[in-house]
């Protein structure tokens, strides 16, 4: 590994920096004024925007910039081998429950995080499934995501309070997917992906 600085114009390819792209701990190995430092920051900001653009109320919990949440979460996520797939927001919620912010979370935030994860599934999942049903052991509502079904449409998120509630998932969250654009009989909950 060769690190760069204005006095060391060594060539660095992007891949040499990958280990740092998900590591938000204070950087000590890459010179602050280097291109490598800025490139790593570009990636860190992508996680910041993914979390706080979608769930801005988290900035009220960890004012002013949310880093009191994002930095320790990302470190914890590494120990938990999380993949930052569509369940990203649900794992942030899991981390919040055992953090110094545990007294600041409520049902509204839970539903927001569930909606954010369901929307991420709707945007990025490329399996044949048309919809996803997501439930929490802590909430009576379920969140349903639908992929885009018409050329002029977009993905849709519904929050549904069922008259006849489904059994709660055994873990904090559970989900199942829908093979068509209709709610299907309950097949049982699957654990959310790590």
């Amino acid at each position, binding site marked *: 590994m060769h690190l760069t600085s204005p006095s060391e114009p060594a*060539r660095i390819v992007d891949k040499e920096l990958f280990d740092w792209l998900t590591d938000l701990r204070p950087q000590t190995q890459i010179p602050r004024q280097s*291109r490598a430092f*800025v490139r790593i920051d*570009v990636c860190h900001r992508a996680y910041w925007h993914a979390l706080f653009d979608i769930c801005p109320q988290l900035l009220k919990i960890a004012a002013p910039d949310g880093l009191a949440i994002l930095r320790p979460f990302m470190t914890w996520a590494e120990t938990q081998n999380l*993949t930052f797939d569509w369940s990203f927001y649900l794992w942030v919620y899991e981390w919040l429950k055992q953090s110094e912010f545990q007294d600041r979370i409520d049902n509204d935030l839970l539903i927001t995080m569930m909606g954010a994860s369901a929307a991420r599934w709707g945007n990025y999942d490329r399996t044949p499934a048309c919809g996803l049903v997501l439930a929490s052991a802590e909430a009576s509502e379920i969140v349903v995501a639908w992929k885009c079904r018409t*050329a*002029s449409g977009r993905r849709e998120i519904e929050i549904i309070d069922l008259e006849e509630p489904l059994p709660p998932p055994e873990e904090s969250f559970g989900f199942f997917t829908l093979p068509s654009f209709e709610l299907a009989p309950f097949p049982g909950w699957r654990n959310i992906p790590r």
Partner: protein
Amino acid sequence: MLVGLNFTLGGTHEMVQRLVDEGHLDYCELLIDNFLQVPPDDLARHFKCPIGFHVMFSKYLESDLDFLQDLAKRLRVLIDALRPLYVSDHMAYFTHRGRRLYHLGEIDYDADYDWVRRKVDIWQDLLGQKLFIENYPSIMDGGWEAPAFFERLTRDTGAGVLFDASNAVCAFRNCGAPLELWDNVIASTPHFHIAGYNRTIIEPHFTVDSHDGDLAQDTLAFLKRRRSLFDKPGATITYERDHNIDYDAIVADLARLRAVFSCSKEEIHAPHVAVGAC
């Protein structure tokens, strides 16, 4: 040169229709894997113009074969039904050590060549037609190796390059790799992308492919300098705009693109039209 716009999902549908109706667009590029659940006839009914297919999340370099086979099967239904001008995908890492990169990573063009070539062969074969692969907006020094990599890859696989002109400008601004290194690639492909870029938030400022503003003067100057390499029969250039969506600003950028390539169809590809038509 046909001028098109990238369409990702419903939010800008009415604007795209208006751009087509008012003659600003010759075709529309669909981020097609956003529409896998949409019936092909619905897509055909909505887009009364030629279309291109841009695949975003196949992650063909990292996805397993079962997933790619299934995805290709569904894409081929849309390809057969809609006959796109081209099918394109990306050249980037979407994950690292199993973790999603929310800002995509650039491959190591030297060290990764052999396995990347195999993956391109597989994905292109599954899609059943020539695949055009987009170059990455280098921040680091891979920008120097990228042009030769794509020349070698297209020679070895038969794939093409979806040459993103502004991505190449980003790479030039960030790592200094001369734009002339891309001449052979530009000459070899009929399909192009272009977008506005922006500078990084923190200093020292570098350039990121942001799709959030107007085309930069150096990007347009690049097109003008290499116009004869870009323009060719069947050539397309897709304008990408994902943020700061403003109808008039988009129309103005589309007009700038048309101005660069004005009259070129008549001058180069249709010699039977009246001399002096332009």
